[in-house]
């Protein structure tokens, strides 16, 4: 196998506030295959969000190796990390993190704007995606004029519109009612199937855990279980690693949306 979206090796992270040290990750070794629909779960303080932040290049690990889309994040500068996030990673945050002064459409096209796509093409692309995920007609509304579920779908659209290799979703259903959560998960699962984009969630939500094809449980900053649901996984069960590493050379193995799509279709 050579289709890894994420690969972590002995990743450690400790937060320090004055003399107080709080270990968040204690030697996490993990691989996420391209096209997976996986979730990390665990109690508060187990390290889920820290793990996602580090994988997304929003935070840096104290030690260990983090490979995302074939690049070693520990060796990248802030600008290179930003470039990687822009081109290869999408984020869905628990609190949506939409920019309040922009409309739904403007929020969703923001990353395309950063990529330098012409305005007309951006608009076409976002409008198409909006209609696919049930946001048609809401383009000109500002976040404050949308429900929680609608805002989170705008956030998903923003994450998806650049066709990233990996989408990191931190507690995406935490602020949604049950029906909205189901609808959102439907959208994300559908996109996963359709585009082969890798999804990695952190969650408390049993619905997300149920829908995830792979569930990685964390406790006290360590992976304690890693379960792949039969018939749901994007990759073969034998490819899951808990606390061990594969024999990859990530520099030469950059998963792409196209490759992931092919892989998904092969399944």
């Amino acid at each position, binding site marked *: 196998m050579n289709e890894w979206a994420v690969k972590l090796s002995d990743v450690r992270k400790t937060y320090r506030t004055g003399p107080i040290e709080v270990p968040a990750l204690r030697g996490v070794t993990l691989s996420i295959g391209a096209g997976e629909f996986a979730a990390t779960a665990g109690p508060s303080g187990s390290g889920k969000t820290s793990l996602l932040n580090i994988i997304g290049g929003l*935070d840096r690990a104290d030690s260990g190796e983090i490979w995302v889309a074939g690049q070693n994040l520990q060796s990248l500068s802030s*600008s290179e990390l930003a470039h990687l996030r*822009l081109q290869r990673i999408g*984020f869905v945050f628990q609190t949506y993190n*939409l920019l309040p002064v922009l409309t739904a459409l403007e929020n969703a096209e923001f990353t395309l704007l950063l990529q330098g796509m012409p305005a007309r093409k951006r608009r076409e692309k976002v409008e198409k995606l909006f209609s696919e995920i049930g946001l048609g007609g809401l383009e000109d509304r500002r976040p404050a004029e949308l429900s929680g579920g609608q805002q989170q779908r705008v956030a998903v659209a923003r994450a998806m519109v650049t066709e990233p290799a990996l989408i990191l979703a931190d507690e995406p259903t935490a602020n949604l009612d049950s029906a909205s959560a189901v609808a959102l998960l439907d959208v994300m699962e559908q996109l996963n199937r359709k585009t082969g984009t890798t999804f990695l969630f952190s969650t408390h939500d049993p619905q997300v855990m149920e829908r995830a094809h792979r569930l990685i449980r964390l406790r006290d900053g360590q992976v304690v279980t890693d379960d792949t649901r039969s018939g749901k996984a994007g990759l073969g069960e034998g490819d899951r690693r808990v606390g061990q590493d594969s024999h990859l050379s990530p520099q030469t193995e950059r998963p792409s949306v196209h490759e992931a799509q092919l892989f998904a279709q092969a399944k």
Partner: protein
Amino acid sequence: MTALALGLGLALLLISLGLLDGGHEQTIADGVRFGPGHVVIEAKGYQDSSSDELLLPAQVVSKVEGFLSTGKIKQVVRGVSPRLLATGLLSSSASSAGVRIVGVIPEDERAVSLIPQRMVEGTYLKSDDKLSGVVIGDELARKLELKIGSKAVLMTQSLRPPGTVTTEAGDEMQSTLLRVSGIFRTGLQAIDANMIYLPLSAAQALLGVTGGQVTQVTLLLVQEGDSTQVAKVLREQLTGAPVEVLTWRESLPMLAQILGLDHAFNYIMNGVILAMVGLGILNTILMRVLERRYEFGVSKALGLKPGQLAVMVVGESLALTAISLALGLGLGLSVQHYFATAGLDLRWVFKTGLPPALVFDPILYSRLSVDRIVWSVSIVFAMATIISFYPAFKAARTELPDALKVL
């Protein structure tokens, strides 16, 4: 608020510079027109000794007048006036006062001096005046209780130019009866209480000066900025003659020093205004950056590079600066235009009269050159740009993932 603060800063700067430059231009113009002109030619040593006995030879006067009436230099010279200066005692039936006698050719003096324009009673001297006509200041007139047509006696000592043979009359006191033909008011006590003007021929006769000698030849130029160049050309023309050619900065060193000091002080004041405005802008932009920490955090998380974020903040600051400068220019130039036309009346400041040493018109007219406007706008623009660097740096350093927390 930032735009307003910056715009107000520029407006204040323009108004302040306009009044400063206008005041200086006016002070120089008044100073030279009440005094020795933009350029003055005197006998060598007169500037240092102030000895009235040091006179310009008549041939020097002729040569200067001849030279200035021809060629390119004629175009930069507005007027030339020979003067004979001396001290004397003017007495009326009521009182006596020490005076500075200025013998002038009325027509020439009109082109150079402001006195003919400041007549409040009677008329200025005319070339066909009888020898007894005299023009005096209103302070002197009040002190000696003189009116138009009043008689006064001017007493003085004959001048003895160095090298001249003393005659019997040479050392004697001379006196003449004068009739007041005009009274002027400049607002300057030093002039209004001391100076008397009479025809050059009358002064020469009274002082025993023969052969057309005078104390000085004063030149009023079209532009003050040509003073140095005109003085240089005249020095070259008069090489070998026992004369000195001085610009107003040399003949009125006190005025030049006061203006220099005033310039320096005003630059400091403008620097303080700019610093205050700058600190205000820095504070506002920094606050804006802190307020937008979440927005910057989200943008960075989505892939905006730190450098791009910094450029964005600087760009926004520059856009804000451009709007502010437009506001400031509009406001500043409007107020400046008002002061340039209506003037700023400062007479209420000097209710008790202007200081004797100050050559100053109490109504101040603003003057602002295009260079000054460009300079001011450039300074404020550069300041705002430099000031935006620090907030831009702070924005670029927005810490992830902390900045993503919704407060």
